[in-house]
């Protein structure tokens, strides 16, 4: 059974057709990549999946349940969480607080619990802090808990975003260019982390990535988008040789011809 199923998703912005009947399936235990040239619609697909945009057509099934019409926070509650291409941390909150916000949907304390500072509040809060601490360690941010997120380096901020997304205890983790701006050793350690996550913390990962070494190194399956359409899918080696993919990246014929035209 597929964890996530997209059926003929289309999305238009005015005259721009951002996605055209995109379908894909994602199985449990898999790391899948979404690649394509700039402007191919990868982030749009993520935004559609997480409820920021509503598709014009098509169906999204997550664990056989439709996600259409759900608000972003409901989709997070259902078990999908994400990171952002242009880092969107809560800059003036501590690292720990950032991760704790990720746990919002998993905390069941109500207003009365908080105001009377009930036992339930304390057990849940301590529990949340312990789990947040584990994630901070997992992403290698130990010792930085009480610093503001904006103090972290670029690479650390990317890892904090991952910790924050994991705090929501997702089944499916969506990563939007997680290794952007990282050097190769940082990227390698992140790849090792992703492999560790699948099966232990999440059921599957879908990532958008431009770094082909990362894509080819860890993906079980690659989906290629171009101009909002899905042009290929399959094992990395297969996709690498697909003429349509080469054309999408390098243009029809040779790129010299294109430059002259």
């Amino acid at each position, binding site marked *: 059974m597929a964890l996530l199923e997209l059926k003929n998703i289309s999305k238009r912005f005015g005259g721009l057709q951002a996605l055209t009947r995109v379908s894909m399936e994602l199985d449990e235990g898999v790391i899948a990549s979404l690649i394509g040239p700039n402007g191919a619609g990868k982030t749009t697909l993520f935004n559609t999946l997480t409820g920021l945009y509503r598709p014009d057509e098509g169906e999204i099934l997550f664990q056989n349940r439709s996600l259409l019409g759900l*608000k972003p926070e409901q989709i997070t*509650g259902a078990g999908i*969480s994400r990171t952002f291409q242009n880092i969107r941390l809560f800059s003036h*909150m501590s690292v720990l607080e950032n991760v704790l*916000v990720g*746990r919002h949907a998993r905390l069941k*304390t109500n207003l009365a619990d908080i105001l009377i500072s009930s036992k339930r509040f304390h057990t849940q809060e301590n529990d949340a802090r312990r789990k947040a601490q584990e994630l901070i360690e997992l992403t290698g941010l130990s010792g930085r808990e009480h*610093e503001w997120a904006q103090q972290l380096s670029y690479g650390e901020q990317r890892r904090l975003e991952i910790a924050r997304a994991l705090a929501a205890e997702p089944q499916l983790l969506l990563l939007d260019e997680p290794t952007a701006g990282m050097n190769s050793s940082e990227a390698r350690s992140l790849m090792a982390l992703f492999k560790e996550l699948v099966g232990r913390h999440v059921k599957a990962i879908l990532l958008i990535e431009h770094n082909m070494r990362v894509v080819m190194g860890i993906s079980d399956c690659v989906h290629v988008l171009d101009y909002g359409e899905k042009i290929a899918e399959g094992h990395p080696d297969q996709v690498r040789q697909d003429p349509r993919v080469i054309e999408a990246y390098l243009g029809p014929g040779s790129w010299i011809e294109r430059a002259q035209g």
Partner: protein
Amino acid sequence: MMASLAPLGLCAYIAASCLLAFYFPQSVLAFLLVEASLLLLYYMPVAARVKIFLGALVLLVLVPFLGSVNGYYLEVAIQIGIYVALALGLNIVVGFVGLLNLGFVAFYAIGAYLWAVFGSPQANAFIAGGLFPLSANWFFAFLLLSIVVGALTGVLLGLPVLRVRGDYLAVVTLGFAEVVRALVNNLDKPINLTNGPRGISPISKPPLFFQPVLEFLGLQIPVAKLYPLYFYFLVLLMVFVIILVTRRLENSRVGRAWKAIREDEIAASAMGVPVVRMKLLGFAVGASFACAVGVLFAAKQVFINPESFTFMESIGVLAMVILGGMGSIPGAVLGATGVTILNLQLLKGLSLWLNGLRQSGAELVIPLVGSYPLSQLPAQFEPAKYERMVFGLILILMMIFRPQGILPPRQGSGK
């Protein structure tokens, strides 16, 4: 060595400032020194237990005592308390949730009129039976009611308004406050609900339920002196409760959700924070604080009219929050205290001093230029008259040199 000297020094300072204020009951400066002791307490590196003890000593014993010597001190302290409570309420909306609210005074007005209408003969104008004014015992019931009413009006305003963002929201809240003021000003016909611009009086004061205890203890305090003390302790209690509630909310998933919305709304919703519901909650909590303070204000003033709830009040409270440091509880307290002291004591004290100079007939001697008789100083030269100008200057200087406020939220304060 430092650690052992600091508490001693603090005690000495508090004792000295109190003695000064006691022997010079007219001196503004002396009372300012007493007030500054609380600020010192906050900054001094002493144990939390010592801080709490000394703070309680100043607030619960010394200030009321000095206040019974000079009633004006108590009046200032009550005003400070009221503005601190308002600033804490607005701090939730502006500082935590990050929504600019330029009409916060509307909730304050609603609370004040809630008690003013039913705690005075005013309600007889539209409810037959001569039941009003309600007896003083209803005061506390209305205090609780005002929390509910405040929360409801907060949600009612929030529902349509929270779809607009940033500048638009500020304008809508501003409009809301003007609507409330216009309603209060004009609802004296066809049915006289608010008595319009003439205002409402006399408004019942809270019940003296502790009178028997005082008699039992043999304390004979005249009512005229008792009420200010009573209001002082009520305001203090209210501020204490508000700080407690705000702190608990701040360190819970609610407070974290608020701050997350302030920092990045889209990321917050992607992390599972129900943005609209949390914003409404913030609006409701802030509004209910303001509403409760309003009830107390009406009871203290005995007379209220729409003039007390102008746009300038909203701006004043907002300035307190911004000066103190948005999103910080100590900041809101300090901002409100500082601005109130500035308005009620510093500028007024300065103006008294200048008046004194004028009447003494002294001359200002500027070498090489000549002398200028101070008695000819024009009346416009009275600080109370350009209070707003000084205030504006301070705001401008603050925004240039310390835009984050005096006590902004600190890193690592999230524990």
